[in-house]
């Protein structure tokens, strides 16, 4: 039952406020973690065998009677489901200790679960309008979560995020309305076949421009990235991890790629625009990160830069590029959430996010420093960690596609990445211990558990990445690279 992916977090989110009345901490902690663990295991054990022979459409049942909810599960959506579940499990684990300081844990978990339900719904649907709808579910929950601290910064960030995001959603919906007006359908299959018979490339181009802007804003592509450096640092650390780790990818990259590759079909024009935007993101993000003093803001800019790589890889549209892009998406989900969680641990222990005030924390927080070093090296693309392989795949794909200049620029961007991560690592964890932090303690158990888990995954995946590519990425990439054809098979829907 794939439907459980949506309904379980939704029901639990509804129950959370009631549970919060009974038990302030224990029950919400337990249930939220149990849910995430269930989703993670479910996605690996139950859902994976379903797609052994390609995508399936599953119908939901209501008391034995079939109802009109048909969920599309294929390699791509399963891959995203797995990524979401993995990161959110780490995040809930981390939240057990971290969210104590904010209070209202039940409310927090309810919003987090809603966000996950929204993302899962987005990933599983096969209908344009539902994409918009579930995107909004996740987005509304994320506005509240960004502002969860109720401080001035949080509210300011959340307001800008909301206002820009609302415009983006509006443009996405406008584009959907136009397509609805042209084809009269909303399902992927109906739209794809309708557009095929209509042959109106300029209007489709206009619509893809609107989608690009809308989903690009959710993805934080330059020049639509402006909300991200405000919103991601202001959120509580687990939410930063969630937003940077998965939300921008699900509501941005997934939706964009699903529509462009499987519904519209990738045109050379789109490839050009996507690669240029990806490149711009890489550089703007990296250069802006270089000048940051706030550790979380630096990480946020770095997200822009890394998502640029993902878009660059996917935008090429060749099978290798798609694999590289998806792999980088997954890796970025791992190490960026790891780094945000570490930044949260540092902030909780020291009370500051400013890199200038830190220094030598490795002596007091060895585990945090070590995991953070793994994350930094991985994101900077140092072999044999996972980030290296995905960047390598993207660069090889660029060379294969005869885009040598872009390949060179991608390498250059990676060098800048290494630069500012060395700055981060050096200023925060190495060097002389600042006297202020003599009594700083290592992060509590669950927080360390989450970061260690992610760091270990970074290393293990770096070592066994061919297996990951074979079992998880290849089916996803097959779906994307087969283009519109795969969607037209579901035309009966």
């Amino acid at each position, binding site marked *: 039952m794939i439907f459980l992916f949506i309904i379980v977090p*939704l029901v639990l989110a509804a129950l959370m406020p009631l549970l919060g009345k009974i038990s302030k901490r224990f029950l919400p902690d337990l249930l939220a973690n149990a849910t995430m663990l269930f989703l993670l295991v479910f996605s690996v054990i139950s859902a994976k065998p379903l797609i052994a022979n390609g995508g399936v459409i599953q119908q939901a049942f209501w008391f034995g009677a079939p109802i009109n*909810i048909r969920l599309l599960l294929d390699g791509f959506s399963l891959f995203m489901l797995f990524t979401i579940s993995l990161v959110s499990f780490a995040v809930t684990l981390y939240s057990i200790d971290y969210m104590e300081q904010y209070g209202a844990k039940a409310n927090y978990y309810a919003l987090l679960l809603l966000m996950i339900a929204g993302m899962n719904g987005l990933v599983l649907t096969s209908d344009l309008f539902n994409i918009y709808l579930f995107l909004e579910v996740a987005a509304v929950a994320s*506005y509240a979560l960004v502002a969860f601290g109720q401080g001035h910064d949080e509210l300011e960030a959340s307001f800008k995020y909301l206002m820009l995001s609302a415009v983006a959603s509006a443009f996405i919906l406008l584009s959907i309305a136009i397509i609805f007006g042209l084809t009269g359908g909303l399902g992927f299959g109906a739209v794809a076949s309708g557009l095929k018979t209509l042959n109106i490339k300029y209007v489709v181009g206009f619509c893809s421009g609107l989608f690009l802007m809308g989903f690009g804003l959710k993805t934080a592509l330059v020049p639509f990235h402006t909300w991200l450096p405000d919103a991601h640092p202001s959120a509580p650390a687990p939410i930063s991890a969630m937003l940077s780790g998965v939300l921008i990818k699900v509501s941005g990259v997934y939706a964009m790629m699903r529509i462009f590759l499987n519904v519209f079909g990738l045109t050379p024009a789109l490839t050009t625009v996507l690669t240029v935007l990806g490149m711009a993101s890489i550089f703007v993000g990296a250069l802006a990160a270089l000048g940051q003093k706030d550790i979380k803001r630096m990480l946020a800019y770095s997200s822009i830069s890394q998502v640029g790589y993902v878009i660059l890889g996917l935008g090429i549209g060749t099978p290798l590029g798609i694999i590289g892009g998806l792999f980088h998406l997954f890796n970025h989900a791992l190490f960026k959430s790891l780094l945000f969680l570490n930044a949260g641990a540092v902030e909780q222990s020291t009370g500051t996010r400013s890199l200038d005030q830190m220094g030598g924390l490795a002596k007091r927080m060895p585990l945090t420093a070590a995991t953070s070093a793994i994350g930094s090296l991985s994101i900077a693309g140092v072999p044999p960690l996972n980030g290296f392989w995905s960047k390598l795949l993207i660069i090889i794909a660029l060379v294969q596609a005869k885009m040598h200049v872009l390949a060179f620029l991608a390498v250059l961007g990676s060098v800048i990445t290494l630069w500012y991560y060395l700055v981060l690592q050096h200023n925060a964890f190495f060097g002389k211990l600042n006297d202020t932090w003599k009594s700083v303690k290592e992060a509590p158990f669950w927080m360390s558990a989450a970061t260690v888990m992610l760091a270990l995954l970074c290393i293990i995946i770096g070592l066994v990445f061919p297996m990951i590519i074979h079992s998880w990425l290849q089916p996803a990439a097959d779906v994307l690279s087969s283009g519109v054809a795969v969607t037209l098979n579901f035309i009966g829907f």
Partner: protein
Amino acid sequence: MHLFLMIGLVAFSIMAVLSRDLLRSAINLAVASIFLAIIFFRMNAVYAGVFEVSVVAGLITVLFITAIALTRGDQEVVENKRHLLIFPLFFLILVIIDILVMKNLLGKIPAMVSSETGTFGEVLWKQRTFDLIGQIGVIFAGVLAVLALFRQGEKNHHGGKE
């Protein structure tokens, strides 16, 4: 008639933007909503029209007015008067571009035939069931968001950064 309603809709929207009093803006917006609702009725979209009137013209306006009342009394933000001059210019250019583009498009978009049967309820329940799940999610999210934002800090109130 359709055209007049449309023009009315746009006009009240513009007034909502340009009006310097927030309360008046909100009311103008509600009026624009009513115009939209009438357009919906004329286009056979009865349910959407009812919803537009009750929710947008009603609920959202109430929300706006509550918010305005809650925030009033502090430093008032007065919009620049120049908008009264700039906006018509902007709007004129907009209309010209709009007319040119639309004229260009007239008759160029091919039509697709699609027909449907059943009643509104059937469609909503049988065909777009998934939307209902999404709606439930959005409503939950909105409610929880408001709860989260207006919660009284328990201990360790984090938001003390004024």
